[in-house]
């Protein structure tokens, strides 16, 4: 018997709980040259902003111990060209489409999501709230419960399908942000975005990326992401969780499910093995068969804590 890999998040059904993470799969076109996107539970686009953004000058990435640092600078085509040029391709893919949205003011999130509300094939939006808010002196939306709540509440008014809030790990209490997102009307949480980091070239004395600081991702951050998922899952917040951070194998994925994630997103691993989702899907079936489990859903939250 083939185990059931399907999951439902905020009423949206996914053929499997394996998604690709924002910024790591473009708008899908390039990855479709590696494997059929129909293999994915869903695809999360690169963050879309109101205007087109060119991003930071290179170098934008650096290798680190067990991971990488990046500061791409939210390079993207902007909402208008996204709708015109990218949606037509995405619409044809047999997978769920989640559009990740970023902004530097609440009004930008609202404006973009209002446009996306008219695109029926956009199954969900994912709000990247790890962005500096220019209205309040560059504080990141996602580090303040009230800013988080306000942002989501305002988007909620214009976007009628489910909203995922993508949380940043660089906070004292991620469960407070999770609860604020729930208060604001989010339907699910993506945990976590990249971790703030820095790398310097000891010979040139230059930071290795032009933005000086960037986001740490990959296997190095997996334990941090897992602890964050566990913390949110055990908080008063009841939203379903999509786990992200350093997932490269089916074993990694299972850890996230056990700690309370309903689905996961694969980011950096795609750079090393672009067909990671396909391998994980096969591995997951094998894992469930080995454990004689009928459904992947039976793994969620089953960690046996000491």
């Amino acid at each position, binding site marked *: 018997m083939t185990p059931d890999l399907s999951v439902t998040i905020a009423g949206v059904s996914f053929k499997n709980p394996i998604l690709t993470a924002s910024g*790591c799969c473009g708008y899908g076109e390039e990855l479709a040259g590696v494997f059929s996107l129909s293999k994915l539970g869903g695809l999360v686009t690169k963050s879309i902003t109101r205007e087109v953004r060119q991003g930071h*000058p290179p170098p934008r990435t650096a290798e680190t111990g067990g991971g990488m640092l990046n500061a791409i600078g939210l*390079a993207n085509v902007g909402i208008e060209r996204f709708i015109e040029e990218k949606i037509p391709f995405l619409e044809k893919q047999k997978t769920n489409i989640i559009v990740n949205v970023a902004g530097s003011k609440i009004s930008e999130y609202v404006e973009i999501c209002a446009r996306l509300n008219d695109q029926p094939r956009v199954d969900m939006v994912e709000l990247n709230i790890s962005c500096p808010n220019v209205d309040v002196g560059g504080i990141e939306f996602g580090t303040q419960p009230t800013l988080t709540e306000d942002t989501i509440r305002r988007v909620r008014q214009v976007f009628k399908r489910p909203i995922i809030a993508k949380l940043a790990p660089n906070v004292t209490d991620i469960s407070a942000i999770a609860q604020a997102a729930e208060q604001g009307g989010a339907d699910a949480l993506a945990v976590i975005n990249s971790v703030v980091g820095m790398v310097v070239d000891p010979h040139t004395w230059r930071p290795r990326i032009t933005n000086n600081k960037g986001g740490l991702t*990959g296997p190095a951050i997996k334990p941090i992401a897992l602890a964050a998922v566990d913390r949110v899952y055990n908080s008063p917040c009841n939203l379903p969780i999509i786990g992200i951070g350093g997932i490269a194998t089916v074993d990694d994925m299972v850890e996230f499910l056990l700690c309370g994630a309903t689905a996961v997103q694969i980011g950096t691993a795609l*750079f090393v093995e672009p067909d990671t989702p396909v391998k994980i899907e096969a591995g997951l079936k094998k894992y469930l068969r080995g454990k004689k489990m009928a459904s992947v859903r039976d793994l969620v939250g089953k960690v046996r804590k000491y």
Partner: protein
Amino acid sequence: MSKINSEETVVIRRRDLHNDYYSLTFGPLKGISRCRPGHFIHVKLPTSDIFFRRAMSVASVNPESRELEIIFKVFGRGTTRLARFRSGDPIDVLGPLGVGFSKPKKRERVICVAGGIGFPPLLYLATSLVAAGFDPKQIEFFYGGRSAPDIIERQRIRKLGVNFHPVTEDGSVGKKGLVTHHVAELIEARPDEKVRLYACGPEGMLRSTNQLGLDMGVPGELALEAPMPCGIGVCLGCVVPLTKGGYARVCYDGPVFQIGEVAL
């Protein structure tokens, strides 16, 4: 887009080309043997302390045996590990990647400008043009380096029958000076010919070649390098600025760009 394959194959041959240069041949490959000149592959290094794959231009492909050759110089961590591969070792490669060189027109004189480790894609270009019946005497193969040991595989280039122009800064092999200077001389000496430049090498050399092309009104293509996390166009990590503004991905929109296209 051509389908990208991830293939695990076997190292067939490793040749020490001296001065830290090595050639590695592996196969048989399936889809990856479709690599054309200017395409590159992404090689996985079997140790996770080197996080990313490393990009390597294709230096030759044997279509019968479906074997592919890369040539590299030991530079940092990745290439040090790469040099440790031995015949019989498994090797994991991803390809074909990128946009390759376009074909010259029948009448055009082809000027290859190779510098240092920019040599492999031009070797492949010249080899496959000759194999496809292009007159080798219509190919000028410039190859610049600091000194004699930087000009590798000379016999192999000569055997192609192309006009070979080694150039070294110290004059220890071929002409003395900078390669682009000698390229300019040749173009000036043949004002009536249609020529096309193909260049790959260090940034300074590419910048000069680009300028030379613009100044002399000569079309051509430059194969660029950049650190590449993904190699398949999804991370936006490998960008170069464009003259028209904005950035292009070296891995997906390149690595081959037209002269005048990128802001070097």
